[in-house]
């Protein structure tokens, strides 16, 4: 198994699917300023996806580029975590996803920027700065919604409770993370992540949910029903014109 290739591919898939969900807020954000902010975050994620998918293709050595990987794989071949593929829900739900995922990514990229593999280190160094901004953005909103009105508190509390189970997959290692020479062990990121998330939730007057149900499967291609629609939409035009250049 080409573990390095699989490892980088997953990280690229995480960013790609996160970007696709953020893009769905375009023209629909609660304020114009927020439309700009979310598009910026989506652009960052898309940039990370492109760099990581390109690198994964090179590691694979079968001539697949970023588009072949993004548009010509079946759902079961994507290795993103389930958290990023969840439908956007209301703004609070999207903020919860952004906070939990962004905090994980930022810690991950901090570790990867010290990688002995120079391409990966370079991608990660840029992504550390970008994801620091994403976390700040999500934290600002978590606090404002959590400690805002009764309605926003209720929605943010639900959002945190509903997204929480999906965070466990972020820190679950497997044969790929064990075998890949360039991998950061995801379990190692959990303590720092926990500390950051706790701080934000406290400031937001929200309770940290209890750990319980911990769905996984994304890393091995067992995705949610929503994912089928997401991938269908992403790939439909590209697949309708096989071999075409754009």
């Amino acid at each position, binding site marked *: 198994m080409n573990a390095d290739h699989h490892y980088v591919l997953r990280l690229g898939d995480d960013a790609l699917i996160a970007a*696709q969900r953020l*893009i*769905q807020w*375009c*023209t*629909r*954000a*609660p*304020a*114009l*300023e*927020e*439309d*700009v902010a979310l*598009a*910026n975050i*989506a*652009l960052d994620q*898309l*940039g990370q*996806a*492109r760099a990581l*998918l390109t690198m994964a293709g090179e590691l694979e050595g079968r001539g697949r580029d*970023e*588009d072949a990987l*993004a*548009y010509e794989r079946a759902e079961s071949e994507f290795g993103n975590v389930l958290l990023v593929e969840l439908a956007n829900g209301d*703004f609070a739900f999207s903020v919860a996803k952004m906070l939990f995922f962004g905090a994980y990514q930022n810690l991950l990229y901090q570790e990867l920027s010290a990688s002995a593999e120079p391409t990966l280190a370079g991608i990660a160094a840029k992504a550390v700065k970008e994801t620091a901004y994403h976390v700040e953005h999500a934290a600002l909103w978590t*606090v*404002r*919604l959590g*400690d*805002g*009105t009764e*309605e*926003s508190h209720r*929605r943010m509390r639900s959002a945190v409770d509903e997204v929480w189970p999906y965070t466990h997959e972020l820190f679950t290692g497997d044969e790929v993370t064990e075998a890949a020479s360039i991998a950061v062990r995801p379990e190692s990121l959990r303590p720092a992540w926990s500390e950051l998330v706790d701080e934000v939730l406290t400031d937001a007057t929200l309770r940290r949910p209890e750990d319980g149900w911990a769905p996984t499967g994304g890393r091995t291609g067992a995705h949610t029903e929503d994912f089928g629609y997401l991938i269908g*939409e*992403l790939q*439909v*035009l*590209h697949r309708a*014109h096989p*071999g*075409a*250049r*754009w």
Partner: protein
Amino acid sequence: MRHNGYSAPEPPGAAELLAEVEATAKDGLDRGRAPLGPGEHTEDELLAHFEAVVAADEKIEPRDWMPDAYRRSLVRQLSQHAHSEVVGMQPEGNWLTRAPSLKRKAILLAKVQDEAGHGLYLYSAVETLGVDRESLFQALHEGRQKYLSFINYPTPTWADAGALAWLTDGAAIVNQVPLCRSSYGPYARAMVRVCKEESFHHRQGFDALHVLSRGTKAQKRMAQDAVNRWWGPALAMFGPPHEQSTHSEQSMRWRIKRYTNDELRQRFVDICVPQAEVLGLTLPDPALAWNGERGHYDFTPPDFDELRRVVAGDGPCNRQRVGNRRRAHEEGAWVREAAVAHAAKRREGVR
């Protein structure tokens, strides 16, 4: 995100327009005109001073005295412009999730984001006239204020996104470059910033179409079909002919607007013909022909009856576009309220 790997050559005429923008940024600065001096002034004196400033191509700034009608005209024109940027995110926004390559996805996303930013710059400019942004949103949602007519047409294929960018951003640039010389300072400054970014958008549309027209048969057909559908709406963007345009005369005297609709439309056609040739696509007008005497291309004017109907609200997508804005605003209210409530709680309240 600025992409430099264009596959198409530079569209003919684009560099000249950008050079004009750069030139206007240096103009319009105060040439040391004597101020009115302290004390009370009659309305006649104020008006005379105002008109002298405008006639000398200098800028009126937010705190300057201005005739009510000038202010009303500016509010109307700037609001419409701001609304057009924001509502204008939707036709191309329709293709973000389905963009056929990651490069095109990123380019399109950057463009749509820019449009939101332009809307914000322009709303900022209107607010200097003492209008509250919220009331402008209400006017838009209730149909009392308008936006550019082409936005009311659908984008059923990917090629529509490219054709729309090439043609309507092209038309917008032709319209906006003179606005960089607008008499109202905040508007002129916003226009310089907007124009520079819009030339990037226009280039991207041109590039996207160029690839299609040199691609598969299906891609080429898609591109030509889209151009056939967008040519009319792009021409109509310049508004009705000068003599039918209610506001133009006054706007031109006050240098809010610098050229007539007809002059701008002609300039646009003259620029598009060579660009279409480079693209390898045809413009859907059998009457399009160079007229040596006039030094311009002859062309069939757009259907102004259709323009009237679309402006009045009966275009294919008006209700959908405005409905989307209204819904986004209403559904976002609880979020905005939360931020306000939070600020008050943490004793940040600034009002």
